[in-house]
């Protein structure tokens, strides 16, 4: 479609800030749904950065002192809530997959491969259990005390599993969240 092509062609102009504010907003909305455009923009942004690096100039010497002094008077923005971007990213990805029919096909193919693999594993494990049962039966014939010990082991393992189920999992994410914690009241700056 013409509009879509038009937007896609805008990657270059967008990366060079050669678009109007309205176009920029429109294009950024488009970027959310177009991973191809997003990847292209990322590459072209890096390219634009090289254009800037190529024309680097030594700034006036006083500038450093002025900027460093200003940092002591300037409050920094807190990071964006850690879970939000991740959740958004996941939602966006889900959206992308659903929006693109060929992705859906790939997903379906992947699912069927996974199902086939799972089926194979199930069969293998059934086979394995049969083998084990046979081995146990043979062992029971060979030694009389062995099976009893096996059953005791089995009971012990079962008890341990129950114990694990009862014990709540340690919240491993908690220390990281605690380390990243920052003063909350900082919403005044834009």
């Amino acid at each position, binding site marked *: 479609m013409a509009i879509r092509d038009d937007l896609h062609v805008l990657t270059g102009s967008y990366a060079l*800030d050669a678009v109007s504010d309205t176009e920029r907003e429109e294009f950024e909305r488009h970027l959310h749904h177009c991973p191809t455009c997003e990847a292209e923009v990322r590459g072209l942004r890096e390219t634009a950065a090289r254009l800037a690096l190529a024309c680097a100039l030594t700034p006036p010497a006083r500038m450093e002192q002025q900027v460093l002094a200003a940092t002591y008077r300037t409050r920094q923005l807190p990071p964006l809530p850690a879970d939000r971007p991740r959740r958004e990213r996941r939602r966006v990805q889900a959206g992308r997959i659903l929006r693109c029919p060929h992705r859906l096909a790939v997903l379906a193919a992947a699912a069927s491969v996974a199902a086939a693999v799972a089926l194979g594993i199930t069969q293998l494990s059934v086979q394995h259990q049969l083998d084990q049962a046979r081995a146990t039966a043979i062992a029971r014939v060979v030694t009389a005390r062995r099976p009893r010990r096996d059953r005791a082991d089995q009971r012990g393992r079962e008890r341990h599993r129950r114990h694990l189920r009862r014990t709540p999992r340690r919240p491993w994410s908690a220390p990281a969240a605690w380390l990243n914690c920052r003063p909350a009241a900082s919403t005044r700056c834009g």
Partner: protein
Amino acid sequence: LQPEPALPPDLAALLGQVARGDHRAFELVYAELSGAVYGVVRQVLRDPAQSEEVAQEVLLEIWRTASRYDPDRGSPAAWALTIAHRRAVDRVRAENACSRREQKAAEPEPAEDDVAETVAATLEHQRVRRCMDGLTGLQRESIKLAYYNGYSYPQVAQLLGVALGTVKTRIRDGLIRMRDCMEVSW
């Protein structure tokens, strides 16, 4: 091939430290990026005093928003220089909105005094120049007018006397060619 001298691998880590309020780390970030920030702002604005003011704003913005830098979305240099370029372009547009007397800025004449100030990023400079030479005339002019002069693509189209669609396409094609020629990774 040589490793990137201007993009050291620890700049992202330094920004992490800056985000936690580390002034020493910011000094290192300043040393690494101030030349390119000032250079690109000056390239767009031309006026030294105004460029200095805007470059200061940009570097302080890097200090202020370091926690918002997302490595998934690009290199630290690209992040910082996007802020710098956009700030410069915004300044130009704000001025144009106030008074439409900017016709003389249309000629992309290289300022003579820039030579004395040129930083030792000559390797990058040579590479960009070499890759620019590989573009078609229209691609090169479109990119230069858009990036170094801060024109919007409709203004570029007007200056070059070509259709809007042509300029959009040439900017994109030219940049893609530049990206591949400079072996930019992203």
